């Protein structure tokens, strides 16, 4: 006699309860994760609007006085502009290197490809403190003095993996027949890359570039080692402000940082979104 679970009323009710319990558990746990991720940021952003002379949450009153004070601090303005410049330069270099590196990783057929893949990801795995120290020793062993160029190049090394990863993912999804079609239609290898491959990799490159920009922009550990005394980045400025006078302008800087990050992500998303319209 075969089992006929669909005839048993009790089993049917228990099964429904089981399904409901599963979804309840998923929603509760993912909700907790979301709160845990966002709450600290919300608190610091909230605190930046306080009228009080010290960091407090919930904020006392509502004002932009700490943002105004921030604007008056020339050191902060200079550091912010410098950080944006460094992040832009480092991202530009990282995109060129990362896109090029993604090709052999995806299309290449050689021994040790997997190992190379892991190696290129290593700055993401390596503690950035270790990388900062290593880079400092490396630079001084080569006899270079610390400069903005050295700082940009050290940032490049830690942000390239983001570009490689996302570009490689886009490239792996790209039908190799597109390139063959372009070649058979008379495009040489360079024009195939510019007219067919690159446009289809843009979403991946934009996403990787956004991650790269943000990681450079708010990098502290590597900058601490390689910035040198006169090259102060925004995270370093923020760090010393927290150390010496913890007033709500620190919270205001944090808010500005969050806004810049959001802006970069939205920009990248927009670029991806625009490209996605014309994708399959």
């Amino acid at each position: 006699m075969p089992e006929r679970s669909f005839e048993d009323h009790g089993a049917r009710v228990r099964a429904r309860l089981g399904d409901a319990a599963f979804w309840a558990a998923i929603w509760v746990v993912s909700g907790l994760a979301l709160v845990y991720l966002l709450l600290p940021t919300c608190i610091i952003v909230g605190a930046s609007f306080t009228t009080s002379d010290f960091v407090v949450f919930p904020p006392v009153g509502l004002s932009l006085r700490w943002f105004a004070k921030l604007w008056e601090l020339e050191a902060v303005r200079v550091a912010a502009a410098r950080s944006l410049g460094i992040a832009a330069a480092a991202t530009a270099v990282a995109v060129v290197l990362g896109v090029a590196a993604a090709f052999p990783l995806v299309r290449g057929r050689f021994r040790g490809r997997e190992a190379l893949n892991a190696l290129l990801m290593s700055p993401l795995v390596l503690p950035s403190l270790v990388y900062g120290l290593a880079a400092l020793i490396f630079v001084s062993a080569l006899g270079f003095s610390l400069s903005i160029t050295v700082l940009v190049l050290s940032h490049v090394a830690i942000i390239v993996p983001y570009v490689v990863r996302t570009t490689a993912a886009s490239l792996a999804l790209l039908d190799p027949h597109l390139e063959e079609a372009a070649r058979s239609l008379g495009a040489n290898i360079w024009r195939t890359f510019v007219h067919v491959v690159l446009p289809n990799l843009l979403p991946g490159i934009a996403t990787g570039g956004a991650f790269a920009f943000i990681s450079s922009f708010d990098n502290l550990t590597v900058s601490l080692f390689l910035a040198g005394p006169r090259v102060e980045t925004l995270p370093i400025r923020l760090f010393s402000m927290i150390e010496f006078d913890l007033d709500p302008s620190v919270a205001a800087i944090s808010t500005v940082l969050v806004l810049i990050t959001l802006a970069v992500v939205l920009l990248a998303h927009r670029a991806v979104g625009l490209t996605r319209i014309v994708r399959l």
Partner: protein
Amino acid sequence: MSAQPVPDLQLLRLSKRYGAVLAVDDVSLDVEPGEFVTLLGPSGCGKTTLLKSIAGFLQPSEGSVVLRQTVINDVLPHLRQIGIVFQHYALFPHMTVAQNIGFGLRMRRRGRAETDRIAAEMLELVKLPGMGGRYPHQLSGGQQQRVALARVLAVQPVLLLLDEPFGALDKKLRVEMQIEVKQLVSELRVTTIFVTHDQEEAMLMSDRIAVMQAGRIVQCDTPQAIYDRPHDLFVADFIGASNLLDAKVLGTDGAAARVAAGGTELEVGLAGETSTSAEGVLMIRPENLALRAAAERGGWEGRVTFALHAGPTMEYEVAVGEGARLRVSRPRAGGGGERTWRIGEKVTVSVVDPASCRLFRGRWT
């Protein structure tokens, strides 16, 4: 000197080796101008490797590819003037239909006005007028197929390669596209090489079919010749449906042989790779068998084990002596036609035309 036309494409003793594996094994083939030749074979037979060697994406290990009397082994793909239509069309997703079709012309640095004019003409040709502004993802599979064809034809290739282009279409659309593509390329007289594993498709479209197995061309002939006179057991089994029976050769007489198979003797025609030994495999096409009531003599006696309505025909399977089963295909009984048979009925199976049975070397079971 002979007035033979000069072949558009010649493959001369072409081989492609991957380590110890011979993907293409000493293949030679001449394709005449305007001819439609199909490379047909199961997956892994080397047909795609051969296609890629012709297109220039693979370098042959030995032999040469000759296009209009020029050896093109070391010519890069973009200089070969060979167009390809891929199975999944490979339309550029970031370009409109018109930009896709104009791509080859832009790469040849033709003027904008000329490019636009040809793109419009091509859309007209593939029956998609006014669709130039759409993006590929807004088109159906059949429409994408047409755009892929238009894109290739826009540059007037010397040779057209079709790499399983109908594989992604559903059955009805596939047959429509097959006929349409065939009409188009014969009108334009484009020399075409078509790669497929679908023998029906190959039969329908080709001037000649090159049946491939394990990197070699086993037989290259017209569809009809390949169907009627397969060269060996592999081709007989691969092309069309056939009944293959182990047979004893009782005696041969020039163009005919007397054989015994499944407990019945019959006289069959000899052609192709005929068995010269005392044993062989007898091939009988299902439509070359007929069913009669069991009482009549002369043929295999058996019982119908299934009967299927396949539209225009009835497909039967009949269990005959020694566990053998015969497939029989009969036109459906129309007004006054032959009767249909039901499962379980006792029947006599007889051969309609013994001369079109074939005898091959080897053993089947």
